[in-house]
């Protein structure tokens, strides 16, 4: 499982989520994540059918989207989703 985090410099809520994800990534070092910034990658809007920012897309081992979250998500909720999907 891998989590794609999509944000942008103009996104205020992204500033809140960045340290939250940093904490999670430290606590769960096995977690694979990747960040895409829309400032440098505007094509990602279409590619990932972005409708909200920030967006967090969970992909399984085969690259299929299994879960999508957006906006301000509490740390507990993210951890629960990560642990529930970690073997997928």
């Amino acid at each position, binding site marked *: 499982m891998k989590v794609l985090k999509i944000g*942008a410099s*103009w*996104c*205020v*809520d992204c*500033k*809140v989520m960045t*340290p*939250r994800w940093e904490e999670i990534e430290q606590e769960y070092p096995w977690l694979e994540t990747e960040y895409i910034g*829309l400032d440098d990658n505007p094509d990602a*809007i279409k590619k990932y*059918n*972005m*409708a*909200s*920012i920030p*967006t967090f897309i969970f992909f399984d081992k085969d690259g299929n989207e299994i879960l*999508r*979250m*957006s*906006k*301000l998500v*509490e*740390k*507990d909720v993210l951890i629960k989703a990560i642990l529930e999907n970690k073997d997928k």
Partner: protein
Amino acid sequence: MKQKLYDIIIIGGGPAGMTAAIYGHRENLDVLLITKDIGGQIKRKSVEIENYPGLGKISGKSLIEKFEEHLKEFKVPVVLDKAVKIKKTGKVFFVSTGDKKQFKGLSVIVASGADPRPLEVTGEKELIGRGVSYCVTCDGMLYKDRITAVVGGGNAGFEAGIFLSRLAKQVYILEYGPKVRADKTNQQIVKKTQKIKVITNADLKEIKGKNFVDTIIYQDNITKKAKTLKVDGVFIEIGSIPATGFVKGLVDFNKRDEIKVNPQTGETKIFGLFAAGDITDNKYKQIVVAAGDGARCALSASRYLQNII
């Protein structure tokens, strides 16, 4: 390890909360700011702010950054979390957060502002983040060359429509009543913008889409017939509701669910618990008024602390 006892815990990161934090720091008090977001309602402002003294015309994002920089200069600690409960035992307040942390303070300033008012129609909740949005400045950029609808014919709705028209292929503004409520200036701008179509007497009934929004259904209030619009995004701009859930049972509210405060001091009925900004029963909901409220509450909290310590 013994838990730290703050002089003031401020809840909310909008102009009221940030100003309270600055004033609390200047009173040489130990201040903690707990906030679920940065900037509060300013981040949803889709037009430039032009009535904050000394700054001329400024975008909501830039004003937030200026507040943040000011706060950082004073090194006020900020916890990015949502306050979910306040309890007072003796002289000490306990503030619990969504991430299950607890903080102790001798006084609390509630400045959590207001949340967008939902429409409460079928499909809305399920499609939040999938085409349903309450923040055009946050998500509008994602709708370049797409079709969008704004629900609400007041100034916020019209300003959202104008913002979207710079990006989207088509913008519909839906107003429930027979006449729009936006001011004349906004109406004139919209009239000149070919991409925007205003639909009055439109009662939105349902937002549809399998994974993402693709259709909205509204009832024409005159003909009573259901009409369908193909859209990629729906922006809801029908006002806001005070974010008071975590102080229910503690303080008194007016009929609009705003916290009743002493207008001179910002005190609530609980000693040591103050409220500032749009969450209170203050008549004028303005950024500069909220900032002034924050200052008033911090100064009142400082006087309160002098009396109890």
